């Protein structure tokens, strides 16, 4: 039966390889120069001097935005792979009526469904896993140089470690279920992408931040690479508004344009230093809720684990629905 699946879905599997291949090529083309530039950063002596710090900052300023854009664009890949590989597998059989052939063959519909879904699920998961290895290589210099957005940052977290493979598998599983429920290819593809996007958004915006209880600190220097979930100014336990901040800063003629951006004025003392420290001395404290970068792999396994479990449930549901379906 593996031959049947292969022969019928050659184009799909070729498409998966092509998508990952093109993306991999792009990562190589943009990543190799970045790695070369990073060699200059790591080789800079004396380390931690102002000169070398400037080298690091230049490196980040040059390459970090591009990496951010790339990661943003690559977000679509697991959804597209899952939708275009998963939805048509069953939906096309209903749309063209070929299930009336397939389900009346001697081996029956259960075995046929499993033999169709399992190899393709495995193929997309492995391809995604291999791609995420390349992506981790691609990203390494940015984290090594100490970018503020660490490995837990949403747009890079789901492309690295085991998360990409898991998100691709769940998209495929959504596709399979959509295919058997909706029974038309194009609507099933849309439904798959919509369901995946909703889950991915909910996970990144709400769920992932709480895999472990986040750390809270009032230290203005948060660890490098931490994922900041929440940050706010507080005075005596309740939130401080921008007006309150500006009132406190009035004596030193500093204006807070935003809670992050302070503009000194003509009457600002020359030795003021960091306005943030001034605010802390006057009772206004910035509390930061964050997840440290060290929790990256813990979170990866948690997220990969529940996505895998949910994928298996969806695929089992698909097989069950096939057994129940009438002509």
């Amino acid at each position, binding site marked *: *039966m593996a*031959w*049947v699946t292969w*022969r*019928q879905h050659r184009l799909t599997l070729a498409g998966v390889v092509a998508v990952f291949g093109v993306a991999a090529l792009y990562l190589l083309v943009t990543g190799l120069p970045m790695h070369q530039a990073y060699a200059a950063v790591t080789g800079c002596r004396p380390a931690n001097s102002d000169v070398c710090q400037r080298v690091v900052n230049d490196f980040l300023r040059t390459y970090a935005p591009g990496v951010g854009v790339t990661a943003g664009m690559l977000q679509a890949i697991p959804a597209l792979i899952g939708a275009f590989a998963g939805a048509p597998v069953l939906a096309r059989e209903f749309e*063209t*009526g*070929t*299930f*009336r*052939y*397939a*389900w*009346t*063959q*001697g*081996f*029956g519909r259960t075995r*046929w469904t499993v033999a169709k879904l399992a190899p393709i699920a495995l193929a997309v998961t492995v391809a995604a896993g291999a791609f995420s290895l390349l992506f981790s290589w691609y990203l390494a210099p940015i984290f090594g140089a100490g970018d503020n957005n660490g490995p837990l940052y949403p747009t890079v977290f789901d492309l690295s470690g085991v998360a990409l493979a898991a998100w691709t598998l769940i998209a495929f599983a959504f596709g399979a279920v959509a295919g058997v429920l909706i029974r038309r290819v194009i609507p099933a593809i849309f439904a798959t992408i919509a369901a995946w996007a909703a889950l991915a958004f909910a996970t990144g915006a709400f769920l992932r931040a709480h895999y472990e209880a986040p750390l809270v600190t009032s230290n203005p220097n948060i660890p490098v690479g931490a994922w900041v979930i929440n940050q706010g100014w507080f005075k005596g336990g309740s939130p401080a508004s921008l007006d309150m901040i500006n009132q406190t800063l009035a004596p030193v003629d500093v204006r807070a344009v935003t809670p992050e951006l302070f503009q000194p004025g003509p009457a600002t003392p020359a030795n003021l230093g960091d306005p943030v420290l001034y605010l802390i001395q006057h009772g206004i404290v910035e509390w930061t809720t964050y997840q440290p970068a060290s929790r990256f792999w813990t979170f990866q396994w948690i997220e990969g684990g529940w996505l895998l479990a949910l994928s298996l449930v969806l695929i089992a549901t698909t097989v069950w629905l096939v057994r129940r379906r*009438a*002509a």
Partner: protein
Amino acid sequence: MNVIETRGLGKRYGGIWALRECILAIPDGHVTALVGPNGAGKTTLLNLAVGLAAPTEGTATVLGGWPAGSASALDGIAFVAQDTPLYKSLSAADMLHVTRNLNRRFDQRYAEARLGELGIPLKRKAGEMSGGQQAQLALTLALARRPRLLVLDEPMAMLDPLARHDFMATVMAAVADDGLSVVLSSHVLAELERVADYLVLVSRGHVQVAGAVDELLAHHRVLTGPATEADRYADRLSVVHSRRGAAQAHLVVRTNATTDPVPPGWQAHPVSLEELALSYLREPGAAALPGPARAGDDEREEATN
């Protein structure tokens, strides 16, 4: 052994009963014509028999008692659905390979020889074949599985007369060679008349007629006579359907023996299968059904409604 046996079989889609109270016992070794108008429930009945649909009420068993859709049933029945579904992007050779991989039994040599005789190149994609070639390919795949029962749902709807002839020739050759049982549905009875020896007539979700063709024909005849006398004899004869002109009446009647006396002034003719079917179709209340059938039981009772 009955190839298809149903008891009180019914199937409802939403609020509509596509098939109701269906009681059948189709014996093996026959070519059964399943006939009825569009929407009568033929496809529903066949889908229930091959396991594509599950009954809402009643049971369907096949090949001497296996539940429809069970593994043994799937193994012994080859089904070709309406519009002969094939994977359009696969070649004929690929379709042979797929079918071989999906079944325990597959006669590759027979399939290749058959396609060669028909002039269907193995490399040609199914989607590029003509309707006739697609139907022949689907039929070849089914026959190469060496089934005990072949079920065909309106297989010839899209075929031109020549293709139809070739198609039926293939089917009948397999029947002659292997003792295959066949159930095929059509809404055009004329083309099945030559080959069918068992008839099931379905109309509006109910089975109206079921029986061996020779028995049905032996137990019905056409009486033609003066229109004025038609009413007088209507009570004494079991009239299935009557057609009256100004002068002449044309009655299709059910008789217990060919030796029933013909009323004076009337003429008796044998009835064709097509006319028999049409008569019943025009009289929804009429039925010609065998009594409860047991395997090997040759006695038939006819029920009159």
